[in-house]
């Protein structure tokens, strides 16, 4: 089941690259006591994700934070190493945190997983964005397959 607006964000463990390698972090830790913008996408280094989705949030990070967002998380079913390398390529450090959901635990808990094995990508994430306020999903934008619009940073700015 897909997560619902107004309900609690699911609990899952994800990974972020630290100095000593991937560091496990729970959604509880990520969401407690703060307002967080999250966007999920099918894969690091893929076309729309690289040319629009991530760059949009990097570009508008300051504007989102000026509207009360404490943290911006980019989530994909990739590992923390790949996410870190991809984020650096797009100037994410200091603006967008690159979160690896390599086990797809968060993606499945949100109900936004999809089978991309026909493209040699295994289980991946649909494209979405959400605003999580102190652990509660306030806004949830799920893109229809192949589309890019409502999950963009530009659209989220209109929702704050």
């Amino acid at each position, binding site marked *: 089941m897909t997560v619902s607006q107004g309900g609690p964000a699911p609990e899952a463990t*994800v990974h972020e690259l630290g100095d000593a*390698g991937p560091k496990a972090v729970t959604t509880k830790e990520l969401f407690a006591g703060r307002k967080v913008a999250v966007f999920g996408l099918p894969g*690091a280094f893929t076309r729309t994700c690289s040319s629009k989705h991530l760059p949009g949030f990097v570009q508008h990070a300051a504007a989102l934070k000026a509207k009360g967002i404490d943290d911006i998380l980019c989530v994909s079913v990739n*590992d923390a*190493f790949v996410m870190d390398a991809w984020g650096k390529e797009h100037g994410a450090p200091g603006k967008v945190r690159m979160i690896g959901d*390599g*086990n797809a635990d968060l993606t499945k808990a949100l109900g936004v997983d999809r089978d991309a*094995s026909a493209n040699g*990508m*295994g289980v991946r994430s649909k494209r979405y964005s959400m605003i999580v306020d102190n652990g509660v999903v306030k806004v949830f934008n799920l893109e229809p397959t192949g589309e890019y619009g409502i999950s963009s940073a530009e659209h989220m700015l209109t929702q704050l």
Partner: protein
Amino acid sequence: MTIAVGQRVPSMTVRVLNEGGVEEISTDALLKGKAVVFGVPGAFTPTCTNQHLPGYVKHADDFRKKGVDSIICVAVNDDRVLTAWSKKVGVDGKVRLLADGNADLTKALGLDIDLRAGGLGTRSKRYAMIVENGVVKALQIEETPRNCSISSAPDILSKV
């Protein structure tokens, strides 16, 4: 069950990077002649990026001189991630990258490993094998993914 010396690499279609993108090719066609195949736990991870793949790139000409027709790197990553990684490492066509994003080949070889603890899901053990016309002639599997000794380019080169 893990594949053993004397056994044939299972027949299946795999995805290999080429200059124009991705080529779908059968393992039988790919492994014609003499091939060295090595598996890595993940693109952009430290050992794979700093030692394992660069070693084979560096020694590619030495392998050719010893009659090796192709050098193939297998990773449970998608083709976009492997393309970005090969650019970073500077593979320059010297090693063919096999994107086993669904882990189909890795599982068929019995060389998969559970790396969920680090948020990497199912991956490949670190190994290298010498394959002649599809038949495994030598196989070296590292004890842990962090090790890169018996599967390294210098070690395999001495066995070709």
